[in-house]
């Protein structure tokens, strides 16, 4: 090793590379896989994806339309289905904005200031990822349920949280709160504070700086976070299942209604509602892809990196 370096150094960098290129021309196959390996790896990857992703996606729509278009349409326009759709939209329309404000506040705190306990706060944001959805629902039952800490007080004041919409909103908010923050933190970290400091120096106040500098800089990342947060909020099953009480037409969100129909052996109707949720998931992925491209293009510090990556 050492003697090699000594031998090369007097030649200079250009000399070394030129010499290398002539003497040991690397055959093109040395850094790419042999055709047989390529075929096997591709076949394994495509087979796996086909079995675990494409097949289920197809099955949802085939099962949904098994008894014909009329049954399908009847299933998704049924009054109970409509009330499930309404509740799902209502819950998402409360939980998502709450988590957007939280995400902005958390990202501002974590990326603009240094303080003791910063990394602890950063870890706490991931908390819901480590908590089973069933446990996420359970903690709200322990707080607000009939036997819970506030159970007696709530029933004295005729306030219903568990087995009612507020409980569903609480559980959904808990399960989805990391998503916007997790999207914003790396972006705001990368954007740095120079532009904001410039705005402040020029006399802008805090809110003006935030609305005119920070927000436009991260708008695509924010939208990306909202799309993902929304998909999870509308699709949550485990946590909502615990707090909902399954009152048909009242506390059933779409994922819960899918379960109810399935357990009633109304398979076609169950898959019909499931197909709506699948379309939502597919739309989320399309939006994610479009917005993801914008996020990469709009974040300046990443630009050189992605150009390099493409060149490589």
């Amino acid at each position: 090793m050492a003697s090699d370096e000594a031998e090369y150094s007097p030649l200079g960098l250009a000399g070394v590379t030129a010499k290398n290129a002539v003497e040991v021309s690397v055959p093109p196959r040395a850094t790419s896989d042999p055709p047989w390996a390529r075929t096997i790896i591709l076949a394994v990857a495509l087979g796996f994806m086909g079995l675990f992703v494409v097949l289920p996606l197809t099955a949802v729509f085939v099962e949904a339309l098994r008894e014909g278009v009329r049954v399908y349409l009847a299933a998704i326009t049924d009054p109970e289905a409509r009330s499930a759709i309404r509740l799902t939209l209502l819950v998402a329309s409360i939980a998502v904005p709450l988590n957007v404000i939280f995400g902005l506040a958390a990202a501002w705190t974590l990326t603009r200031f240094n303080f003791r306990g910063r990394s602890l706060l950063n870890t706490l944001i991931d908390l819901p990822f480590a908590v089973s959805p069933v446990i996420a629902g359970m903690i709200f039952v322990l707080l607000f349920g009939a036997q819970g800490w506030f159970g007696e007080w709530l029933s004295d004041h005729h306030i219903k949280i568990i087995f009612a919409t507020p409980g569903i909103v609480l559980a959904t908010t808990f399960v989805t709160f990391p998503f916007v923050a997790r999207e914003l933190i790396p972006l705001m970290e990368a954007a740095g504070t120079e532009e904001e400091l410039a705005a402040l120096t020029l006399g802008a106040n805090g809110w003006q700086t935030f609305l005119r500098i920070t927000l436009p800089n991260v708008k695509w990342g924010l939208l990306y976070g909202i799309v993902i947060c929304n998909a999870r909020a509308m699709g949550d099953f485990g946590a909502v299942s615990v707090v909902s009480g399954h009152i048909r037409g009242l506390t059933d969100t779409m994922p819960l209604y899918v379960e109810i129909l399935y357990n009633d052996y109304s398979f076609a109707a169950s898959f019909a509602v499931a197909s709506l949720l699948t379309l939502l998931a597919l739309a989320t992925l399309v939006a994610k892809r479009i917005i993801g491209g914008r996020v990469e293009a709009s974040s300046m510090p990443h630009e050189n990196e992605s150009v390099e990556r493409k060149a490589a």
Partner: protein
Amino acid sequence: MKAERRRVIPGFGLAMGYTVAYLGLFALIPLSTIFLKTAGMGWLNFWTTITSLRVLAAYQLSIGASLIGAAVNVIFGLAVAWSLVRYEFPAKGVLDAIVDIPFALPTSVAGITLTAIYAENGWVGRLLAPLGIKVAFTPLGVIVALVFIGLPFVVRTVQPVLRDLEAELEEASATLGATRSQTFRRVILPALAPALITGFALAFARALGEYGSVVFISGNMPMRTEVVPLLIMTKLEEFDYQGATAIALVMLILSFSMLLLINLQQSRSALRDGV
């Protein structure tokens, strides 16, 4: 520097206050109920609850199936990530996008769909039935659901690392006389190892707590196909809140230590890379 930054950019008090209050109200106070509830039940009671045969069987199934599911995902997820980064093939963009389906699809939809496919009269179940293999309503069904749910975690952790892997390393290895498989084993795999471990841990943690996609395909037979989240659900429905919280506490400790391990692993490899 520190003090200066804090003084110049406004909003520390408001943003910090809001963040902490929000986390407290929505996460910390609710989660503390688990610790307080179990603290009130006494050691002996706690111990007999979490070591009853039915609970132990559920832990065994949950942990075992999650480990197997995550391991399957490491192998196949690596193949998927490898294909997406290194090869060109038709509809590659579509394949790349649908890797996230298990993450975006509501779990109850995944649950009923997998059950329909793997039931004895389903598309795949019908092919396996003559071979004597039953998937739906057996522990194997639990594994299938957990493989589905963990898929994006391994692929999305390995993919960026594989993309950023410098071609020079592989060229150098080939120049020095290594065969392609030696290069893979000695150069590429060690570089991917941290990402593979992180992906494994994330898939495992997610699988451990998974409820929706498992309840339909597992059949929910106590002692045989009952996973821990389902057991917690059953206890709650029986209004056995203490039993449910005791089981949940053990789960929480397990997944928190998992998360801690992931963080340690990540900060260690970040240190090594000089980030």
